């Protein structure tokens, strides 16, 4: 079995926010995965941005998602400069309850060979720099197993 996948060292992961993206990260602090849905036409968008690309409205409903996702595409990243021991499963995921919006993230704690296009995932949250939390994903079956590693 290969090395299990992980993230970049969490303490070194920094994010910043603006008025459009702040609610996403505030919700993540509460272990909620959210996405902005246009309050006028219902179009989801990620990353959050100031306008709805369909109708240009700035009115947004922040929808709490189920946390379910599927792998749309992915890459197994190794040999990151300064982090030679890490194996990262970098994924682009579809969010079934936010159609049209995708998120770029990591699948953690899995054999990299277990990651496939279409693999079902479930969200988890890890603590990163400055008190923020980052949504990451686990293979769904694994997430259903009892907590603790």
């Amino acid at each position, binding site marked *: 079995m290969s090395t299990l996948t992980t993230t970049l060292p969490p303490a070194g992961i920094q994010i910043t926010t603006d008025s459009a993206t702040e609610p996403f990260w505030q919700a993540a602090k509460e272990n909620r995965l959210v996405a902005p849905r246009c309050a006028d036409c219902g179009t989801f968008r990620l990353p959050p941005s100031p306008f709805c*690309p369909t109708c240009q409205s700035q009115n947004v409903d922040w929808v709490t998602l189920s946390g379910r996702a599927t792998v*749309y595409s992915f890459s197994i990243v*190794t040999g*990151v400069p300064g982090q030679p021991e890490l194996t*990262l499963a*970098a994924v682009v995921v579809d969010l079934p309850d936010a159609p049209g*919006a*995708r998120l*770029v993230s990591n699948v953690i704690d899995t054999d990299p060979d277990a990651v496939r*296009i279409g693999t079902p995932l479930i969200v988890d949250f890890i603590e990163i720099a400055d008190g923020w939390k980052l949504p990451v994903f686990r293979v769904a079956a694994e997430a259903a197993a009892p907590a603790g590693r």
Partner: protein
Amino acid sequence: MSASGPFDTAIVGVGATPYYRRGGSAPQTITELAGKAIIAACEDAGLSVKDIDGFAYYSGAGAGYGQSMDTATFMETLGIPEVTFSAALTSGGGGSAGSIGLARAAILAGDATVVVTVMALQQVKQRLGTVFGAVAPSPENSFLQPSGLVGPGHLMSVLARRHMHDYGTRREAFAEIALSSRENALTRPKAIMRTPLTLDDYFNARMIADPLCLFDFCLETEGAVAVLTTSAERARDLRRTPVGVVAAAHGGVREWGRAFAWYGMPDEYFASSGHAPIARRLYDRAGITPDDIDVALIYDHFTPMVLMQLEDYGFCKKGEGGPFVESGAIRYKGGSIPVNPHGGQLSEAYVIGMTHIVEGVEQIRGTAVNQVPDAKLALVTGGPAALPVSGLILGRMA
């Protein structure tokens, strides 16, 4: 305008420094490297640097990653007396080929008469390979950077994976692009990589962003290249055989947009190069089809993006890029559409697209090291990258 001319503008001079491995161009500065390339291009054309009155950059006049070029600095140190046009295409390397269109626009508008396009690149302060991992966090890249997709090749590996999934494309196809480029570089005096590359070498190489390995990534080199564009009328009186600007286009559609840093692209764009709209406009303007292109200088920062451009430029059908390249179609020797006979950014040198313009010029002049016999039309591309991406068709003056 048609492929047989007459053309309104022409490339009349190209110049370059030697190409260096990362760190090898020190202690020269960006201004020094760029200046040497500009002087060399002027000598090639039979013009004085004092004849330059326009600058048409791309990449926002950036020089590689984090450094920049400046028209006023060039004027001061090279003694250029007056400039009547100074502008840049936005974003990054996607604009390389299109910057010749910017030069053309300036000339046709009467804003300038001799326009230089220049790129200089050093990678000591910031290397290409990890450029996205190194930038300060922004609200936008906070949705990307934590994933560990630290460089453009990492980002594009995700597109490559989807192409493999959608169309059955194999790593053997990516390997063929690397091997073909290397074979072409072997005869090139200036090429950085001049030792043969085998399929075993390819499959034994370190994976960087699986499905991509070391040999799918372009070189991290240094150097500068300059290209001079002027009116067709003036071009006829200069030293070298003028190379006509048949068509140039830059831009792209929203579905490509921020491209691989956004990932919201619908299926048909996700596993693509984003060049399909550029290809349509180029062929329309030139009044030609892909069959008319004799040699293709395809921006090759990462092998899968060459494959996807071959599809978007119509050399094969969408999704058939894998079998197409595996058939040997892109080989300089025996291929139906020779791709990057100069060895490209994968094996000759990476100067953010400029070496492709130089090779296009040399192919049309008939002076290329690996000359495609009787080449009349050359395609040059810039990007895939965040929009604009761009393309250029060069041809013989009627």
